[in-house]
């Protein structure tokens, strides 16, 4: 007898919202240029909203070409001294920053969740702690570059223009700024349009740490702000995390210049479950792979490849587990899935889900009550998906999982690799030799075996193929910010 309906929940958890009364956001934020908060030359501002309530949190400045130019000039000026500081001094600044992030962790976590919609338990337990850890990690490298590259002389590149996405705002900032500064570069960083606030709090942290003016400049704004950075002749390097389309735009735009690039782009990563897998933990891994941060994760395990012999019972388990996910207020400590980051992104997700239905895939969404205001999407899994379906090929960047089946390890590899992307992959099996064989054959920069979506400053991250190039994290993460002679 099969009992396929997920058991009902016994007790409702009373709301457990994180308190927000111990700090105050400014009404209007200026740009952070040359160590000061200054009004934008553009005289333009935009509202940043809480996607869970659609309420305005603050107004931030829109940097135009002139503002970007001011930022680059400040960074260029600062580069002359910052790059000449002893590595040990740069290290101390970075250690300081790491500590201040830890001290202000709660405030940063709450603002991250309010501005971006992610569950507080994720911003509290993942984003902010790992951001602090990144500064701590790269601080230690700053005075050890001659040990990192024996026989070579390592010198910084110059002014780095860094453009980051809205899915892990402070964490992506840390991934970009920490190695750049450790290696002696100065930076102009543009946070995403919808999630600028923690970057502005980070600017305050730079002031608290007494970081020399101009070493870090934060230009908030819109896509034209980023375009101005990409086009700026005095930026030596562009580091970008975001969509493959924009990555390609950056490649085109910088063609013929001497700008160096690192690109961390999209993905359509396969999470592969074999019939001998630890099934209950695999279910958790699939859930974490696709529903972590509402699926707004470049390395999200958005394609489930499950061995055909266990597909039916495995999907039963998965659906039952999905019914346990708590969708709602990002600031509630029990929320598993928060708000979709923006109205635009919600629209994109809805279009993809429509296409999945139209193309004939079978949809499952657990019953869940979504709040009236704000941007929400329920956890969704498609089964009976074919390789040719759009939902199996294109990055949705939302809580939507596409399930395909395979029969043999060779077929699993062939299907997993059948994509222009190559960011990550997951393998679930109890057989050690099979893990290593799969890891060898999957075209992906990160392979999680019997786990998924783990991140650490010591661990390099980045893609194969159209998922970009260059690595962030670890020893390898130093390369993009150094010239070796």
């Amino acid at each position, binding site marked *: 007898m099969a009992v396929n309906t997920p058991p009902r929940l016994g007790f409702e958890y009373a709301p457990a919202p994180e308190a927000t009364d111990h700090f105050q956001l400014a009404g209007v934020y200026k740009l952070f240029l040359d160590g000061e908060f200054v009004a934008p030359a553009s005289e333009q501002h935009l509202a940043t909203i809480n996607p869970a309530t659609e309420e305005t949190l603050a107004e931030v400045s829109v940097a135009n070409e002139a503002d970007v130019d001011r930022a680059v000039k400040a960074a260029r000026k600062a580069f002359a001294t910052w790059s000449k500081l002893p590595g040990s001094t740069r290290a101390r600044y970075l250690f300081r920053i790491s500590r201040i992030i830890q001290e202000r962790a709660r405030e940063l976590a709450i603002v991250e969740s309010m501005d971006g919609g992610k569950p507080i338990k994720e911003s509290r337990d993942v984003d902010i702690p790992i951001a602090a*850890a990144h500064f701590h990690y790269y601080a230690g490298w700053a005075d050890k570059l001659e040990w990192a590259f024996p026989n070579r002389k390592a010198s910084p590149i110059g002014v780095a223009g860094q453009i980051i996405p809205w899915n892990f705002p402070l964490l992506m900032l840390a991934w970009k700024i920490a190695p750049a500064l450790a290696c002696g570069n100065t930076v102009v960083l543009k946070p995403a349009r919808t999630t600028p606030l923690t970057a502005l709090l980070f600017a305050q942290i730079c002031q608290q740490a007494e970081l020399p003016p101009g070493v870090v400049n934060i230009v908030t704004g819109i896509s034209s702000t980023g375009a101005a950075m990409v086009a700026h002749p005095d930026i030596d390097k562009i580091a970008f995390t975001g969509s*493959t389309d924009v*990555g*390609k*735009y950056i*490649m*085109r735009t*910088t*063609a*013929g210049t001497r700008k160096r690039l690192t*690109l961390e*782009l999209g993905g359509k990563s396969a999470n592969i479950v074999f019939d001998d897998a630890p099934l209950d933990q695999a279910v958790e891994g699939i859930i974490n792979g696709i529903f972590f941060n509402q699926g707004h994760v470049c390395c999200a395990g958005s394609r489930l490849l499950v061995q055909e012999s266990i597909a039916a019972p495995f999907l039963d388990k998965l659906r039952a587990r999905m019914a346990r996910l708590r969708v709602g207020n990002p600031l509630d400590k029990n929320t598993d899935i928060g708000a979709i980051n923006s109205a635009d992104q919600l629209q994109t997700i809805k279009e993809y889900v429509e296409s999945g239905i139209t193309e004939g895939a079978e949809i499952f969404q657990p019953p869940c009550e979504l709040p009236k205001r704000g941007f929400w999407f329920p956890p969704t899994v498609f089964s009976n998906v074919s390789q040719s379906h759009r939902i199996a090929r294109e990055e949705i960047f939302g809580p939507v999982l596409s399930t395909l089946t395979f029969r043999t390890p060779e077929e699993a590899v062939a299907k997993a690799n059948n994509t*222009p992307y190559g960011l990550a992959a997951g393998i679930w099996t109890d057989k050690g030799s099979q*893990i290593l064989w799969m*890891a060898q054959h999957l075209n*992906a*920069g*990160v*392979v*999680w*075996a*019997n*786990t998924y979506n*783990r991140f*650490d400053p*010591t*661990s*390099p*991250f*980045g893609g*194969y*193929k*159209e*998922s*970009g*190039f260059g*690595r962030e994290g*670890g*020893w*390898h993460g130093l390369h993009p910010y150094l010239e*070796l002679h």
Partner: protein
Amino acid sequence: MSAVRSTPPKAPELDIRKTYKLYIDGKFVRTESGRTYQVAGGRVNAPRGSRKDVRNAVAAARKAFDGWSGRTAYNRGQVIYRIAEMLDARRGEFVSLLGKGPAAEREVDQAVDSLVWYAGWCDKLHAVAGTVNPVAGPYFNFTFPEPTGVVGLIAPEEPALLGLVRHLAPALCGGNVIVALVSESQPLAGLVFGEALATSDVPAGVVNLVSGSHSELLAILAGHMDVNAIDVAACNDSEVKQVQLLAEANVKRIVRSDGTHSLEAITSLMEMKTVWHPIGH
């Protein structure tokens, strides 16, 4: 009267000239276009490779990739060392193609050196460019380099042999497969290098050598969606820009190595793969 039959003085033997061919998929082939252009002071008709030759070369390279990248590092090192042996064995022909004299001798020596140097890196680069990463949790985590895939190489005009070899060797060392445009003005040494490859246990398709007009073929190679990386070392700025503009279509890696021996010459054509696994029981 006895006539003395005089044998006419023996005329010098006529040269057996070599027909120079492209080297694609382990075979020496005429360009499918049937075109040639004159090199070596007009004495030699070199094949003028076409769009389809490049296409065939990329297809052959892709087909060879799994096999070559799947070889053990030890084996790849031996095969590359074998190329050095075969090059050295044909030293006379190369020296003569390169214009004879000490400079030509030196160029062949350096090309052999380069192959030997990179041969030795095959089974060491993982130890130097790979890492074990002490993540803050119960996971074993390591990073190791893997070949990028099909590499397009635009060899410098000169040195015609050394320029090709010292860019090709690091790419091969990392396990990549290669489609190279040999020197346009002096293609013969590059094409004959194919003969050294053909006799050195290099599997068919791993290295493909095409001669012809760089300006014609560059765009084909740079735009090809199954080419993963391009080494533009020999390109001028406007050619580099042309490659960069085309490379975005499939996010090609663009490498500008200067040909000096370095670990980065190898790793710049490699991808870093990081693997996580829980530590438990």
